């Protein structure tokens, strides 16, 4: 089924915005954060208008209602990723915090000096720096699955690395720069065969692909609401129950305890064990509304639409003289087009496109080592989501020709 773009675009009030007189927004930066549909905005608005109260342990009506909404969202998020149980869905602030939760709780309880963690060269800083920090603290070793010139993971090199018996393989499902969709289930399977556990950074896959925890078999899967039409400030760490049960708590405070004495505490059961303090309640409810929205459109339909836009964008961009695209061919990637333009810095490209209301991102996109690998300081990145159209790709192409003319 193809998406009804006219109807969808009407769901997103911001897409109708005039930035300046006669300049309409063309939003091509969803990989950084997606826009929010009315369904999400209204769910959060309704929460504050009708239901706002702190969750858990309250007996008054509002407290019961807000708890039910907060936990109901968790159930629907669990279903969205096909987790066996909502207890495996731990609310965090975002993907970064979810990965840090694993680094602080699981890794500090299980990794010692000399233990190997395998990452990849295409990781976002959020899946590099927590491990750098642990390396400094614990003396763990880090190795990286190399990225080939066409932007794919070198799986043969990975298999060789696995001979060194890693304790953890932590990798991105989909690159936020190259758009590469990695064979996640295969990478997880190989990790398990080597006796390692596997963490999948799903920040870019959960918004764009149908993800299924049973098929993926990852031990941990981390993702953020704001990249999938939900609000900022809320994300999820999914984990296998056996691991989560044995992990020590992450942050200490209210809600994560079963019992507190003056000199001791007993931790709460899952998932609350990892949710200290008053959480982002309205945001969790907004996240629930976002997965409802995506489900109503159908993740397969969303993926198909993005693929069509992305393929068209690659074709059009490749025609531009002096423009170099990074990453694999359209059949191996999501809706991300990172490029450089001869003689023009990516910042200048982004700024001139902004003149016509076209929002693209410029920089290293929190993946500095990957840019170093390709020996470029920065790229311009246009990214596409369920609401983008071919007409917007045409505007982008027209804008890039304008940049070339200015710097000509």
């Amino acid at each position, binding site marked *: 089924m193809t998406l009804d773009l006219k109807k969808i675009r009407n769901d997103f009030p911001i897409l109708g915005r005039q930035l300046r007189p006669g300049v309409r927004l063309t939003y091509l930066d969803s990989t950084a954060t997606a826009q929010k549909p009315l369904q999400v905005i209204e769910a959060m608005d309704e929460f504050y208008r009708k239901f706002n109260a702190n969750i858990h342990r309250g007996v008054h009506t509002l407290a019961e209602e807000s708890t039910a909404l907060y936990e109901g969202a968790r159930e629907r998020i669990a279903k969205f990723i096909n987790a066996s149980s909502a207890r495996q869905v731990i609310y965090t602030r975002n993907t970064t915090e979810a990965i840090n939760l694993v680094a602080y709780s699981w890794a500090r309880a299980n990794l010692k000096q000399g233990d190997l963690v395998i990452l990849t060269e295409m990781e976002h800083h959020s899946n590099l720096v927590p491990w750098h920090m642990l390396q400094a603290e614990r003396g763990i070793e880090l190795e990286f699955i190399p990225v080939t010139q066409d932007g794919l993971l070198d799986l043969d090199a990975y298999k060789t690395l696995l001979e060194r018996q890693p304790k953890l393989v932590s990798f991105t499902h989909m690159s936020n720069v190259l758009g590469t969709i990695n064979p996640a289930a295969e990478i997880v399977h190989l990790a398990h065969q080597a006796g390692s556990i596997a963490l999948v950074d799903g920040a870019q896959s959960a918004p764009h692909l149908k993800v299924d925890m049973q098929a993926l078999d990852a031990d941990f899967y981390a993702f953020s609401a704001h990249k999938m039409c939900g609000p900022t400030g809320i994300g999820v760490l999914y984990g296998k129950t056996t691991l989560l049960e044995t992990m020590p708590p992450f942050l200490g405070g209210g809600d994560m305890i079963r019992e507190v004495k003056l000199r001791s505490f007993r931790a709460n059961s899952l998932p609350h064990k990892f949710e200290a303090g008053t959480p982002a309640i309205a945001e969790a409810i907004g996240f629930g509304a976002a997965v409802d929205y995506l489900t109503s459109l159908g993740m397969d339909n969303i993926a198909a639409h993005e693929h069509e836009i992305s393929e068209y964008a690659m074709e059009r961009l490749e025609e531009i003289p002096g423009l170099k695209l990074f990453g694999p061919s359209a059949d191996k990637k999501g809706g991300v087009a990172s490029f450089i333009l001869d*003689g*023009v*810095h*990516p*910042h*200048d490209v982004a*700024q*001139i496109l*902004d*003149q016509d209301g076209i929002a693209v991102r*410029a*920089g*290293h996109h929190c993946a*500095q080592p990957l*840019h170093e690998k390709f020996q470029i*300081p*920065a790229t311009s990145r246009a990214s596409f989501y369920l609401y983008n159209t071919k007409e917007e790709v045409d505007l982008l192409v027209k804008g890039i020709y304008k940049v070339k003319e*200015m*710097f000509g």
Partner: protein
Amino acid sequence: MDDLYREVIIEHYKNPSYRGKLDPHDISFADNNPLCGDHIQIDLQVSAEGIVTDARFDGQGCAISQASADLLLESIIGKTLEDVKKINKDYILDLLGIELGPVRLKCALLSLKVLKAGVYGLQEAGDDLVE
């Protein structure tokens, strides 16, 4: 907005007068803009009286950062190091002749940060140098 890419800026970006390195030099300092990975190195030759006699910058970055580096170096040759220490944000904006938002301001001020860190003999170029 078209102002942002005034001809003078494009011209200094494409044909800078002070790009390169100085060997020997009396002061050299380099730093990055962590937001975008822009990199600038500045070399100075300074006379016994503390007057900047020559200056060059090297590195890579956007039109704003490269043009501001070129304009800045052009403007400090002949000045004393004490005068260079007094240069602030407004001085750069006057040189460029444009208004900038907070993100692009960092591009424009990178060269000044690097210059002042070098002149003060600092280890790191802090944002406080360009306030």
